[in-house]
């Protein structure tokens, strides 16, 4: 019937008529049977705007490995504990969730401040951040940074390369002038963001969020000196082992308070008259999250570093072109069009 172009309603009607047992079913059974048939033959598609909520739900159901098993409630918990908002100036993000975490954080920053995306691998895969439909302003908070660049900035170097000013009035071709004007505006914005980034490195970054697949402690240790005292951090892992390590190191170095290791328990309900009960299927877990607040350690600035000897961030290969220049697109994955460019 499908191939002949019958509508879903017609197919279901035919199924009802040909069913031996339909009439003898109870009202509730009929409803359940109909619902099942509708799911199969009467597909309704809903077009929804993407958001952290819809994207995380979607990816958790279909491709949860791509997002490191991060369930919406765990993501929500991390965003709350790290106080992400549009008034903050900076946040460190280290993620291996394909860009979901970066997008979800950027979504809450309203175009203000810098989201310092620390690159775990040379070319950070934050493709999912493009699906948030953030718009150019919101997307512009995302700044990729290599660890060696962070160290250079902290030593007083500036990685911002001055850009030659082109006198636009000398360009006669209207279209070319428009393109160059736009490019100049974009470059100015990028430079401004890089300046904010470098200021944040000196001033102390206001939050640290980590969601990677391997050990988190080397990254915590490396970024710890740049996190401002009193500011929150949240570390997600599918396993407790690395979080226990971080907890012990932070506790022993007296560098953190309000330490909390938790998992999130999440259950959905079917709510129908006389048939309300939790759904039979349930997500078994979504990792663990360690949160806390950095404090100034009585044992000194280098206490954590000294305690955790011999654990260094894996060396990243030398990039062929510097990612710190602002004349190039220093956004995610140059090959892919970033979302805002389509909104010309």
């Amino acid at each position, binding site marked *: 019937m499908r191939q002949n172009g019958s509508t879903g309603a017609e197919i279901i009607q035919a199924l009802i008529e040909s069913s031996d047992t339909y009439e003898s079913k109870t009202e509730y059974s009929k409803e359940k049977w109909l619902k099942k048939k509708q799911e199969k033959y009467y597909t309704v598609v809903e077009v929804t705007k993407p958001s952290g909520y819809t994207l995380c739900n979607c990816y958790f159901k279909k491709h949860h490995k791509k997002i490191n098993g991060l369930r919406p409630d765990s993501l*929500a918990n991390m965003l709350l504990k790290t106080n992400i908002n*549009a008034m903050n100036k900076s946040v460190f993000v280290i993620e291996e969730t394909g860009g979901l975490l970066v997008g979800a954080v950027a979504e809450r920053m309203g175009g203000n401040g810098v989201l310092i995306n620390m690159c775990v691998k040379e070319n950070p895969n934050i493709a999912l951040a493009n699906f948030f439909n953030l718009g150019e302003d919101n997307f512009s908070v995302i700044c990729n940074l290599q660890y060696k660049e962070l160290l250079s900035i902290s030593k007083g170097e500036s990685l911002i390369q001055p850009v030659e000013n082109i006198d636009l009035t000398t360009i006669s071709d209207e279209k070319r002038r428009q393109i160059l004007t736009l490019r100049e505006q974009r470059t100015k914005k990028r430079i401004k963001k890089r300046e904010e980034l470098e200021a944040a490195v000196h001033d102390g970054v206001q939050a640290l969020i980590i969601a990677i697949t391997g050990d988190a402690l080397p990254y915590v240790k490396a970024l710890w000196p740049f996190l401002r005292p009193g500011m929150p951090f949240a570390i997600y892992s599918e396993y407790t082992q690395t979080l226990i390590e971080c907890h012990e190191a932070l506790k022993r170095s007296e560098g953190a308070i309000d330490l909390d290791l938790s998992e999130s328990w999440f259950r959905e309900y079917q709510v129908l008259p006389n048939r309300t009960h939790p759904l039979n299927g349930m997500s078994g877990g979504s990792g663990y999250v360690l949160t806390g607040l950095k404090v100034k350690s009585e044992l000194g600035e280098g206490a954590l570093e000294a305690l955790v000897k011999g654990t260094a961030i894996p060396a990243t290969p030398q990039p062929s072109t510097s990612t710190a220049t602002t004349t190039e697109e220093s956004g995610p994955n140059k090959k892919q069009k970033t979302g805002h460019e389509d909104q010309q």
Partner: protein
Amino acid sequence: TKMALLLPKKFIEVGDPVVLYSGRGNIQLIRIEPGKTTNGKHGNYPHDALVGVEYGSKIVSKHGSGYVHALYPSPELWSQGLDHRTEILYASDISIITMYLELKPGMVVVESGTGSGSLSTAIARTIAPTGHLYTYEFHGPRAEAAREDFKANQLDKFVTVTHRDVCAEGFHPIPVDAVFLDLPSPWTAVPHAAKVLRPNKRVCSFSPCIEQVQRTCLALVENGFHEIRTIECLTRPFDIREIDAESGHDIRKLAKKRAREGVELSVTNYPRKTHCVTVPRASIKGHSGFLTFARKMLPESK
């Protein structure tokens, strides 16, 4: 203008809010006043000694008997220390509400009831600086107390408190991007929510009892909502211990016990094999409320 809860500073100055943190749930929120001293469980803390100190520092009490950490009050810390005029929403539910209502900067949000203002503060943080929260409270004195709190935290720019019974009278006729209901009879407020909520935007109702949830879901269906989901979310915290692999004893507790007996036992150089383990906390919050979310359909979709 300084926005106290939303622009953390580095150094403490006169007039600044400071959280004196001495353990989870053990916080005191103070405002620096010259000449004043705050007395707490862990000693006395003269305010003058805090001026110029960096937030995030350990502060030893006046007579050295105890210490606290001085922190900048985030909305979460503020909630931990606030006056519970009503049962408050905890981080677990607040985090879900924030995400599942798709809250972001610039949104206009409606909430009822205001209660102690813990969720209101969290919402204001997420939608600032360009958004606005209209919060409605049925209880007069509570509405006034909330208004004063928001003013003290310099959130009054983002939050308008209205003393009103929204179930009877509805909301201000301003189109909004999200509605949150924490009411005894939320199903009576659902039609009012439907009137002010923009299409494709979301509503959330928080109810402790399943009977309330059932009536609310029916009301949502009848008032042009779809994507109706009822969920429950709890936090399962773990304690982390280091235990002696053979005896199973918590070595930190053991070291303290030995110290009382006059025997030295090092934790950092414990003589035998140890394991770092996680143990689920013995007693936890098992229920706060059910959260029901729904999305308003486009008028033509009904």
